[in-house]
């Protein structure tokens, strides 16, 4: 069953044609990697999927429903974005992780230590000032913050850039586990082709605002990808 369907999505940003009629279909529980050159529209696609930006034309269906007809807040709690830039909200790491659940009125069900561990951070970080963390630590708080919402679809925009290899392993492990055990669907933007090969079921190759090719990870040839 497809959980997200993107049909002929077009989007202009300034005078750049960021998406030029992009189509893609996502199966529930799969991990799909998006690869492709800088400026090919990967970030733009993720941002339209949880409706931080509006498409100029085309449509995106989530569980069969056009997201343009959905309540944006309800959508963003199910299709959760971990942005390319990890911006920390003012306050402690714990407050950052609890931010989403608190707004949803579910802060009681939020296990901060668990979310942090899943994201490759020690629970000892909970009391730290989030804005003073290192780049790699912020990346992991951003993942923990997203996991705290118990998403159905996780949109990851280069989530492991600047994170040390050991913690990257931990992050990849968590996401794989969530996909296999909880049916989490993951869209994973990365420039790290070996990572894409490690984590994904399928790899979509973006170029100039369209999906040029989708292959099973095992058949991916990366000569043509960039």
């Amino acid at each position: 069953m497809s959980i997200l369907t993107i049909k002929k999505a077009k989007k202009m940003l300034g005078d750049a044609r960021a998406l030029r009629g992009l189509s893609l279909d996502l199966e529930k529980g799969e991990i799909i990697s998006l690869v492709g050159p800088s400026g090919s529209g990967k970030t733009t696609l993720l941002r339209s999927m949880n409706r931080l930006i509006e498409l100029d034309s085309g449509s995106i269906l989530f569980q069969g429903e056009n997201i343009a007809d959905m309540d944006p807040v309800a959508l963003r709690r199910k299709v959760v974005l971990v942005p390319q830039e990890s911006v920390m909200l003012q306050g402690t790491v714990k407050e950052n992780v609890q931010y989403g659940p608190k707004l949803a009125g579910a802060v009681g069900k939020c296990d901060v230590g668990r979310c942090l561990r899943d994201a490759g951070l020690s629970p000892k970080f909970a009391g730290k000032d989030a804005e003073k963390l290192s780049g790699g630590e912020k990346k992991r708080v951003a993942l923990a913050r997203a996991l705290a919402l118990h998403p159905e679809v996780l949109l990851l925009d280069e989530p492991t850039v600047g994170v040390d290899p050991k913690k990257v392993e931990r992050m990849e492990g968590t996401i794989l586990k969530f996909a296999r055990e909880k049916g989490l669907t993951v869209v994973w933007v990365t420039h790290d082709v070996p990572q894409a090969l490690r984590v994904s079921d399928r790899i979509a190759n973006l170029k100039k605002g369209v999906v040029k090719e989708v292959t099973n990870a095992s058949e991916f040839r990366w000569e043509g990808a960039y």
Partner: protein
Amino acid sequence: MTGIPYTWEEGLVIMGIMMVMLVIAIGLSVWKKIGIAREYTYAMIRGGLQLFAAATLLYFLFEFEYWYYPIWLLLIAMALMGGYTSARRAGKMPKAYRITTPSILVGGTVVLIVLRVSGAMPFKPQFVIPLAGMVFGNAMTICSLALNRLTREFETNKPTLETMLSLGATPKEAMEEYGRMSIKAALIPNIDSLKTLGIIFIPGSMAGLLIAGTNPILAAEYQIIVYLMVIGGGIITSIMVIALSRRLLFTKAQQIAEWV
């Protein structure tokens, strides 16, 4: 009854002497290359002409039996002027006058109604016009400060705002803290002048009352009443302009507006 110790012809002579002093001062600033001479001269001529025009209007209004007919026009004109002036402080926000004008109008009008009902403002042009000027003037200043701060916060904190939205915040929740900060910042000048009232700062209307020979205690009492009301109007205006700005800062789909 005027409290001013000379006739208006003598006043012209005094003004002439002041002009000479000012010309010397401006000459000094040209010599020192401070670079304000042109703007200062322009501002002085413009301000002076505006004040005399207003005085002429007041002169006739004070004499006019049916002064309260045109007064509504004057109040609306004040709100419109204030709204347009304030909107220019809203950075790139398009059509900001649509939120500044109603905010200033409501803040100012509420205060004038309270002043009238409480008896602090007799329904006479001598009271209504200067008080309305103060109330609307202050509402405009506060509106500009609040909106200017808010649009700047949005421009610099766009990534933070988007992060909040992407974690399921509504626009109202996402901008709450920035809105609060903007209102607070806009009220600082008012609060500071309240604190220094009477120490380094004798406000214009009290100065006016003293010159006209009012008992200082009564003058101070009146000043405080007026001051509290003026600030009250500013608070209403700032809260309203921040609340209304949400429609312009976010889209219907709860995204940050493209102009930010």
